[in-house]
């Protein structure tokens, strides 16, 4: 069970008291936490955040079953980003928060100044509007989905009491003060107060997985005074005033009171609270009054907006854009200065230009002219191209059938598309345990009875064939076996439910459920529970045990006992628990007792397999002893002071002189493929940390079974109670590591929440981080959600690496939001983690494909896309600078003004998409089989400052060739046999054509995998430009644009020089690039290239990767340098380790609103249920 569902025992008591005081102050309401069941734990720190000044606000007064004098929020919810009227302003605000859009808007405004713009007035605004339109369409499409989901929720039906009968209305119509009826397996439409239920004592079970990620059922109980409201006429008569605190976000807190006319005030507390988002379970119906609706419900109050995350590449791109902006300014200044010099020499001589009479001709205006001229150095379309590409990449993730989980019908989902490439750079994976690594299914695996290990019957194995069955017949330990199985079937708090002739077991503890089912598997079927007895069907006989006492499980006691009267009248004590607490209580001492030694050995054996163990013992209690003890116990249980301690002491009296029967091994079932996935992640140089709210022993069990820790791996255990202890222990470990500190060692660090608190304090933080990064595996157990987030944060900050958090429950929300990338496990548990996550997958094993395939692909695609976008812009627009040298630094453009504007939007728009969506180096199979291929993207080798400059210089060289080659070619302007001469635009169009061709072909050179889309985009772009010339050259004067282009098609295309150069210039420009690529690929081949090549040639790259020479690369060395420095285990925690080595683990909800002992007393499953 995840953290809140686990047993936060040791931290609970002090905090609980603290919490009660907290809730008291400021509220004049009666404190209803008298039973001490209010759940206040550290969980609140995240699910509820900071207390939001409730004290100042007025208490809410609700008139039940009557119209409210006060207007409350309606029950309609909206999670959409925009509404119809708010779309335009909000959208524009979002868009113009981006610097680049602001920049282009500024350029568009500057263009309005007369005589300043070299490209007319609308050539920036038009593409900008086009691009904003595309963004707007994308936003609308995305928001429409949210609207639809909201609509669907709002239109669900709920039954409401109206004019004396039940009426079905939409959720959105539900109002505060309404009384509604919810039936089994329905969600609560708002925050409700339970008035009555179909179950005995008005108990109701709810599943809160949507709220906190816990799957175990929670109990709620109506106050006895309202439980009478069972039928509709009584309900219709019901008039009461409900007073409660104002809406808040505390999921585990509720205080209120209900005042009926002429009756005493009833206190209301969490026991009566049914939160929106939770679901009614195992309860036929409940009647409840609405207290908080719509956005005032606790669920909605908790739905924090996911923080805006940006990928590292995005951030780097911004710096590059900033750099380009600076270059742009510098270029403009230089150009303006040259213009000034030119003017100084020639203003008076060049009579034909009439410079002295020019307007807006000072240095400042010239600077603006050049700013406009060069503004496209910053790629206008990059943002929107990248956005659309990411959108489709996210779709590819969602459409990947390899990440589709058929059992739960859940495909992967990308909830954000900003982080696609971040998936390719992950260095640390922080994983939750329950529901993430494990399925949250406990499975009875084997048991040891009387020194013999029995496996559970296999799926195709008949019970009669099992060893146990045989031994039960003739083995000397047969009575022990029978007693053991009886104990499994009796000693628990499970409630059976018969549905269609099959028995369903409901349990607050998944372990117990597994045990009962295990017993059933061996033929001891637990059938009925009445308030005072249990019936077990064993070997054809019905055994009837009266349950006299249940001594509940607590983490401190580490055991649980049932005192029962056997059918033959004997009184038996059944006790199960950790070996460390059972063994000392064995009759005859821990060492010498019957079976003790062999069972202990078996326990170690089980633990090594990663199984959870429990030890079972029994004792016969003579009648008179029981009587005496029963009195003592009764006195203890009614004591006013120190009741719990007294009960515990009383329990100690009877749990003694036990006789060991055996032990069980329960498998906390791992999800499919978890060990393999973890092994691959480790090979991909990713560090895997497990952060769990669960107990240390459970966490270590799982780490073992997930192959995160192997038996030879030394464990560093950090369990300290004080700051000093933590400091001492940290420094000792650091010293022991010696020179291997901060290098990766084959060591696992296990730390618990309390020690973590000290270790993360200011003064120890550095040492702790050093220690953490020195260990290959880190397991943090018993950590609260906020601590999970802090750990993630700490690692992100300290190492600067990309972190990924994966979890399934509400307790993982904080960490998911804090990590660079948050992954939610969808399908089984609640939706809260998924809603907070950036990506959701159904199974942990899909993480491998998400990272190694999609992550690596997206990273290389986006990197290439961005670099290419910079490249193509530099390539074209720097030509304007070269032309400025020949055009008197006047800011004259070489190309037609609209062709410049459409360069990014039309003529070179497609290749980036082809790269961004379809390029791939290796096939998914190869990427998964060789996790080492993840390393280049992880280390950010494909996109960094160096690579950026390589591309920029490349673009610069290309622009030089692409300008001067055509210029020399057309220097005399006469390109036709008829002797006519072309003007500046002939040269411009020549250059432009060669640029488009070169740039498109360059995209091809950068593409590793040419699909038909790639072909279409490259050849299509060139063709588009040719078509564009033809069309555009024939518009004027029918349409009054492009006068200079008139007739250009005939002139350009009839020039043989044009065609010959079209062959020559792109080739000449790209040959150096090709040469460098080839030499690089031949002589300095990278690992990725080598693997790619061998894949295409259908060779097995395994040999290549296994080659000893390759393993010596820097990273591989890092990977292999993991060494063991710990010859001996730390002796300080020998005791702890002993227990660990025996694998004890048991989980049960503790401190529930109704204790387990009370719950079982309430049930009589021999009677049919439901009365409504």
């Amino acid at each position, binding site marked *: 069970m995840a953290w809140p569902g686990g047993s936060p025992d040791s931290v609970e008591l002090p905090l609980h008291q603290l919490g009660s005081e907290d809730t008291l102050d400021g509220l004049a309401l009666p404190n209803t936490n008298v039973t001490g069941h209010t759940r206040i734990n550290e969980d609140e720190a995240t699910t509820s955040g900071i207390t939001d000044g409730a004290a100042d606000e007025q208490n809410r007064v609700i008139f039940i079953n009557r119209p409210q004098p006060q207007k409350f929020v309606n029950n309609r919810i909206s*999670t959409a980003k925009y509404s119809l009227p708010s779309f335009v302003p909000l959208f524009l605000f979002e868009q113009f928060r981006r610097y680049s859009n602001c920049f282009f808007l500024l350029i568009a405004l500057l263009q309005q100044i007369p005589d300043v713009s070299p490209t007319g007035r609308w050539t920036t605004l038009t593409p900008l509007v086009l691009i904003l339109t595309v963004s707007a369409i994308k936003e609308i499409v995305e928001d429409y989905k949210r609207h639809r989901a909201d609509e669907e929720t709002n239109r669900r039906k709920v039954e409401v009491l109206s004019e004396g009968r039940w009426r079905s209305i939409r959720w959105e119509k539900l109002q505060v003060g309404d009384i509604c009826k919810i039936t089994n397996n329905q969600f609560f439409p708002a925050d409700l107060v339970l008035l009555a239920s179909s179950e005995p004592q008005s108990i109701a079970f709810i599943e809160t997985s949507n709220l906190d990620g816990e799957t175990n059922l929670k109990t709620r109980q109506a106050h006895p005074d309202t439980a009478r409201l069972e039928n509709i006429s009584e309900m219709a008569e019901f008039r009461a005033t409900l007073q409660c605190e104002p809406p808040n976000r505390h999921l585990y807190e509720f205080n209120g009171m209900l005042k009926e006319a002429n009756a005493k005030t009833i206190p209301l507390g969490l026991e009566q609270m049914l939160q929106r988002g939770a679901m009614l379970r195992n309860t036929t119906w409940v009647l409840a009054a609405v207290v908080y609706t719509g956005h005032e419900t606790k669920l909605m109050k908790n739905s924090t907006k996911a923080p805006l995350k940006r990928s590292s590449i995005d951030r780097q791109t911004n710096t590059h854009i900033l750099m380009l902006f600076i270059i742009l300014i510098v270029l403009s200044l230089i150009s303006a200065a040259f213009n000034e010099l030119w003017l100084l020499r020639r203003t008076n001589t060049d009579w034909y230009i009439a410079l002295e009479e020019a307007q807006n001709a000072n240095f400042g205006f010239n600077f603006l002219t050049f700013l406009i001229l060069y503004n496209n150095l910053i790629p206008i379309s990059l943002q929107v191209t990248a956005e659309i590409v990411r959108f489709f990449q996210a779709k590819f993730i969602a459409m990947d059938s390899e990440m589709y989980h058929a059992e739960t019908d859940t495909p992967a989902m990308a909830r954000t598309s900003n982080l696609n490439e971040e998936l390719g750079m992950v260095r640390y994976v922080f994983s939750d345990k329950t529901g993430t690594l494990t399925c949250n299914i406990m499975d009875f695996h084997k048991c040891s009875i009387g020194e013999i290990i029995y496996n559970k019957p296999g799926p195709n194995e008949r019970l009669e064939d099992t060893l146990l069955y045989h031994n039960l017949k003739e083995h000397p330990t047969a009575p022990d076996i029978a007693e053991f199985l009886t104990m499994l079937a009796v000693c628990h708090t499970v409630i059976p439910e018969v549905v269609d002739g099959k028995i369903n077991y409901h349990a607050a503890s998944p372990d117990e459920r597994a045990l009962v089912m295990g017993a059933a598997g061996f033929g001891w079927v637990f059938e009925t529970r009445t308030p005072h007895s249990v019936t077990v069907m064993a070997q054809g006989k019905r055994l009837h045990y009266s349950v006299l006492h249940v001594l509940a499980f607590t983490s401190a006691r580490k055991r649980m006992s049932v005192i029962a009267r056997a059918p033959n009248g004997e009184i038996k004590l059944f006790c199960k628990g950790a070996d460390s607490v059972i063994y000392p209580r064995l009759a005859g001492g821990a060492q010498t007792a019957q079976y003790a030694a062999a069972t202990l050995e078996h326990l170690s054996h089980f633990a090594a397999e990663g199984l959870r163990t429990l030890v079972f013992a029994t004792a016969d209690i003579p009648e008179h002893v029981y009587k005496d003890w029963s009195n003592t116990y009764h006195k203890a249980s009614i004591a006013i002071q120190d009741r719990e301690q007294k009960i515990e002491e009383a329990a100690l009296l009877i749990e003694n002189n036990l006789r060991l029967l055996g032990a069980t091994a329960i498998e906390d079932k791992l999800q499919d493929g978890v060990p393999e996935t973890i092994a691959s992640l480790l090979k991909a140089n990713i560090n895997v940390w497990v952060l769990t709210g669960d107990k240390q022993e459970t966490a270590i069990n799982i780490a073992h079974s997930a192959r995160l820790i192997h038996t030879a791996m030394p464990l560093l255990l950090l369990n300290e109670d004080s700051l000093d202890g933590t400091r001492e222990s940290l420094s000792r470990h650091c010293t022991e590591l010696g020179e291997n500190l901060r290098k990766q060692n084959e060591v696992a660090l296990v730390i618990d929440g309390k020690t973590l608190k000290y270790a993360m304090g200011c003064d120890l933080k550095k040492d702790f981080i050093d220690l953490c990064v020195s260990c290959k595996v880190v397991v943090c157990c018993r950590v609260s959600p906020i601590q999970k987030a802090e750990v993630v944060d700490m690692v992100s900050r300290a190492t600067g690496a990309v972190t990924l958090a994966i979890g399934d429950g509400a307790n993982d929300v904080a960490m998911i939001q804090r990590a660079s990338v948050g992954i939610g496990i969808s399908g089984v548990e609640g939706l*809260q983690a998924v809603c907070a996550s950036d990506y959701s997958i159904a199974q942990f094993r899909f993480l491998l494909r998400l990272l190694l395939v999609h992550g690596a692909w997206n990273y290389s695609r986006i990197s290439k896309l961005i670099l290419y976008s910079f490249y193509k812009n530099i390539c074209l627009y720097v030509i304007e600078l070269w032309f400025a040298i020949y055009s008197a630094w006047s800011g004259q453009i070489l190309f037609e003004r609209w062709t410049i504007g459409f360069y990014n939007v039309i003529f070179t728009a497609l290749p980036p998409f082809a790269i961004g969506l379809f390029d791939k180096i290796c096939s998914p199979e190869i990427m998964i089989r060789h996790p080492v291929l993840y390393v280049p993207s992880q280390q950010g080798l494909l996109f960094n400052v160096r690579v950026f400059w390589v591309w920029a210089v490349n673009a610069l060289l290309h622009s030089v060739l692409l300008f001067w080659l055509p210029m020399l070619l057309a220097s005399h302007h006469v*390109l036709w046999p008829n002797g006519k001469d072309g003007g500046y635009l002939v040269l411009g169009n020549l250059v432009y054509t060669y640029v488009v061709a070169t740039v498109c072909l360059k995209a091809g050179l950068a593409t590793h995998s040419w699909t038909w889309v790639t072909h279409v985009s490259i050849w299509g772009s060139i063709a588009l430009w040719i078509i564009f010339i033809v069309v555009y050259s024939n518009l004027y004067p029918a349409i009054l644009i492009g006068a200079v282009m008139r007739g250009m098609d005939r002139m350009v295309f009839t020039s043989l020089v044009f065609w010959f150069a079209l062959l020559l210039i792109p080739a000449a420009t790209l040959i150096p690039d090709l040469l460098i690529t080839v030499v690089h690929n031949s002589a300095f081949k990278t690992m990725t290239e080598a693997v790619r090549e061998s894949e295409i040639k259908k060779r097995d790259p395994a040999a290549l990767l296994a080659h000893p*020479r390759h393993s010596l690369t820097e990273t591989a060395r890092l990977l292999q340098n993991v060494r063991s420095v710990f010859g001996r285990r730390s002796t300080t925690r020998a005791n702890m380790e002993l227990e660990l080595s025996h694998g004890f683990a048991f989980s049960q909800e503790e401190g529930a609103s109704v204790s387990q002992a009370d719950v079982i007393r309430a049930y009589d499953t021999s009677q049919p249920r439901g009365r409504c």
Partner: protein
Amino acid sequence: MATSSDTSDQNVKSRRPAESAFKQQRLPAWQPILTAGTVLPTFFVIGIAFIPVGIGLLYFSDEVKEHVIDYTHCMKEDAVNVTCATFIKETKMEEPCMCQINFNLTEDFKGDVYFYYGLSNYYQNHRRYVKSRDDSQLLGHLTLTPSSDCDPFAYADEDGKQKPIAPCGAIANSLFNDTLRVYSQDLNKMVEVPVLNTGIAWTSDKDIKFRNPAGDLKTAFANFTKPVNWRKPVWMLDPNNTENNGFQNEDLIVWMRTAALPTFRKLYRRVDHTQVGFSVGLAKGPYTLQVDYNYPVTDFDGTKTFIISTTSLLGGKNPFLGVAYVVVGTLCLLLGIVLLVIHVRCSKSTTEMINVNPRTPYS
């Protein structure tokens, strides 16, 4: 949000993604391997193809005959030691200046022969110059308010009245106005080389972009004045040929298509090969260039040239394309050889043709 689409989706159809090759990113793809071994044939092919093409282009360029005469500083005809350049400067272009230059064509100019004038250090590509025109006016849409782009050559005083200029703008204002004639000094007899002043502009310009207003040109332009630097109004540009007059005058049209570079040439006249003695081109021999020198360029250190040229399929004389082809072709051959060496050495070093060494980076 959290509560939506949980129960209601249960009976909807499966959410299993479609198995199409596109959606699963399994589109068939061509995956080129760019290594020395695979690419070197390309280099050889380019090299072998480009060199002959380049030689062919060079041949074409070489076929073109061209004679360039710089007449910037030609001497005034009836004066001693006065260049026309200084003369027109001193007289502020009030008086005409004639000059003559004798030259010799050393070989026959066969085929169509074209006369160009060339200017250098002349920034026809200056931003303020390029935009200083009114295309709408040139379409024949005469309005009394020419485009503001024409400033400061939009209005001028005529007879004390301010009138709009037609054609307006700096380009039209600076129309090249030297008159160039070539005489053949055959047998001591000066024969003027017959020329055509039409067919020198782009047909699209002549037919579409430049239109005269309807009706009689003189009346149409009555409310307009000539550009300040002009000697005669626009309707007098070619009084002999109505087709070549007004905005549709081809000298004007050629001039209006601004040049890309500060050194440029523009087509001036075509030799009329229908005339006797010039049917095959210009024969070699002595010629005289007669210049009506009006256009000032010396202020900004410009030059004026007169160019006689034939053309090839590729246009004027320019060996650059051919040279470029030969150079690129040769480079490709050389690189091909280099790649061959790399290929041989790299494939020798490992049997698997993969050269990964301890320093091999991951990417």
